[in-house]
């Protein structure tokens, strides 16, 4: 049985969507589980299928940045930015998603688990009871995205000052350095003098 089939079998109803890609012998797996099943999914995968190595946990803000990529000419008219939210692999319904990676250290197969975080409460269960190592990762995600992990013992800031306002990795948090001064790095993708062709290949 393939790894994905095994995972969907033990997780049962909790699976919302799954995705697999990669060549034979190096298949990577994505599974999105229900928000309410986030914690149980981890413990089931750990206990039943031996996914006992905790790799990382973080979050993604799927809203496109309202500030663009900061590469535009600041004097020119701004093009409107498309702000529709499109989630990546395994879809989703919310702006914020948490994702984490577990690996079975015997078969070396890894799975990326994802879950929607409700837009109104921004709360999801903590993994600390399942993987002690999730502690710091959840603290980091909390201060960078403002997601609360229910059941986490101590969600203090790790990096930022205690009284810092805002959540830096959210897309609507402006990167001020890019706004006050245009980025000179855009020169990098302009054609070289002397007419280098588009498909240059090795220089």
């Amino acid at each position, binding site marked *: 049985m393939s790894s994905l089939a095994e995972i969907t079998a033990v997780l049962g109803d909790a699976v919302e969507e799954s995705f697999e890609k990669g060549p034979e012998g190096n298949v990577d797996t994505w599974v999105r589980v229900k928000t309410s099943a986030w914690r149980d999914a981890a413990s089931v995968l750990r206990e039943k299928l031996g996914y006992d190595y*905790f790799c990382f946990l973080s979050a993604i803000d799927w809203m496109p940045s309202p500030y663009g990529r900061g590469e535009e000419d600041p004097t020119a008219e701004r093009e409107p930015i498309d702000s529709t939210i499109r989630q990546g692999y395994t879809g989703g319904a919310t702006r914020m998603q948490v994702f984490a990676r577990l690996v079975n250290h015997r078969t070396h197969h890894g799975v990326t688990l994802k879950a929607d975080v409700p837009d109104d409460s921004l709360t999801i269960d903590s993994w600390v009871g399942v993987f*002690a190592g999730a502690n710091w990762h959840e603290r980091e995600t909390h201060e960078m995205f403002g997601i609360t992990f229910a059941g986490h013992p101590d969600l203090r800031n790790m990096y930022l000052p205690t009284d810092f306002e805002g959540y830096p990795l959210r897309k609507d948090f402006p990167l001020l350095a890019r706004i006050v001064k245009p980025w000179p790095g855009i020169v990098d993708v302009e054609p070289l003098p002397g007419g280098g062709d588009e498909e240059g290949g090795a220089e």
Partner: protein
Amino acid sequence: MTMLGDRQQLAYIASQAADARVNVELETEGMTLNIGPQHPATHGTLRIIARLDGEQVVWAEPSCGYMHRGYEKLTEVRTFPQVTALVNRIDWLGSFANEVPFILAAEQLMGIEAPPRAQWIRTILFELSRIANVSLVLGDLGVQLGAITPVFFAFRDREYVLNLIEGATGGRFHPNFDRIGGLKDDLPAGFIDETRAVMRKMRKFCDEIEGLLFGNEIFEARTRGIGVIPRDVALQYGLSGANLRGSGVDWDLRRDQKLPMAWDKVDWKVWTHPDGDSYARCWIRLQEVRESTLIVEKLLDSLPSGPVMAKVPRIIKVPEGEAWVSTENPLGEMGYYVVSKGELGPFRVKIRSASFNNISIVPWLLKGVYVPDIITILASLYFILGDIDR
């Protein structure tokens, strides 16, 4: 706990017992000890707050963030080729190794692969940065215990490796040499012979360190049975690299993962140690430097000819998708989760650095140890500040 060796199990039980003894034997008053942010034993600006009861640590917690540079946010406003200049600075002792997984992730999304010669040279430079990185900590171990000599040996011999990296890439510390689709340049003339000579020197350096430290009674007394991490705890905290193999887990991403790199083209050995203590972790690092020198020599023997750059468009747009690639870096598993929306730059990059996980075990590990052991435990866990804070 079934898989633990006897010695490891005894040491683990002893550390648990020490934990329970605190505050029971004597009525004492606790004190809080601040180690760092500036302290010779913290390799940079890591601050450790430890609450002591006499000589024993009751509670300890590292305080990070003195070097947070926000790379995950910055990558969102860079183009794909520009990101390597940032991630170079995460683990500054093994910079080239930081670039590789990111480039591999971008290549995976674009569906291209570097030509064989580029894969070989990447692997060689990767192993050279491992040697430069880990040989420094081997010397540094002595300093933590009051022995000054090994660190001079380490700085002397690391210089040869840095010269090689500089000769090939132009940068001693931050090569920024890896490109999507291959490498910036081919190897310079004379690189192969020079590298063989340096690899022999590095093996001699390993012998010297082994004689100076690993056979040393004081070193053994200070590290054996100290800071024991059982294997299930190591896995739970996501420890990787020598820290995980020091706890008896036979897992090396270079061997156990199919990547377009050259590690699987030559024979080499993954070292593990069953004890899980400070000594085991240091010993594994020593063996890994030796093994790396052998890998480099074998790769030089089989170096294929051909171009070092695949055909890629001048303006690189990475198709929509998500990719996770991690490699076995000098410090442990270093990986990038790259989300692309088909633009010039990434939509989101999650940087999974080894030291962040490796150091997150410190509050658990330091409970019940004695103050002088804090230093050896931290030295044996081996972290780099830039790799914790990113």
